């Protein structure tokens, strides 16, 4: 299953709820304001790191760039994809759930 999250973890609980429901081997893609949750040193970083250990965590590059979030500040284990990579993820996973 592919989970997409589009909310900043500092504003809403979409990311927390997603992480609580993502099972081993699932993929999580952070898009739009959720990309703020992908950087090191935040109050949610430990949770995201733990998720990256059991799931595959991705972040959408164009959304990072738009917000001035540098790729070298990303939590280890998070992969940057572009929109085509986003499409590939949806092909690899038979169901997509949007956490809005």
């Amino acid at each position, binding site marked *: 299953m592919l989970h997409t999250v589009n909310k900043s973890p500092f504003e809403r609980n979409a990311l927390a709820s997603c992480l609580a429901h993502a099972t081993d081997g699932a993929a999580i893609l952070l898009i739009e304001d959720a990309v703020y949750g992908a950087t090191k040193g935040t109050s949610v970083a430990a949770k995201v790191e733990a998720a990256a250990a059991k799931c595959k965590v991705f972040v959408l590059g164009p959304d990072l760039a738009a917000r001035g979030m540098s790729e070298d500040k990303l939590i280890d284990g998070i992969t940057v994809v572009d929109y085509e990579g*986003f*499409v590939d993820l*949806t*092909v690899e996973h038979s169901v*997509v759930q949007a956490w809005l």
Partner: protein
Amino acid sequence: MKFGILVNEGPYNHQAVDSAYQFAKAAIAKGHTVSRVFFYYDGVHNANKLLEAPQDERQIGKLWAEMAKEHGVDLVVCVAAGLRRGLKEETLAEGFRISGLGQLIEVGIQADRMMTFGD
């Protein structure tokens, strides 16, 4: 692979419709099919022909209409959500059509993947 896309938000309050558009564009570029985009909730506002964005901003309704024309994407606006928000045939932009929610469930059944973009 056949994709169905649900767009839940309008052209300005949220990025959702742009994410949906970029996704659809990438899917088509990769050789997939986007069979239908269903506009629901405030997403119906994307289909308003009276929208006039400043010239230096993207014209999201026109972008969808061009994609529809070139790649046969069916752009469907929910009739009930549209009526609530003053969108009817008279205000509908070219390239879109108004129909019922059944069109969303139908594409959910027929498509290989169903995507939701919202707020």
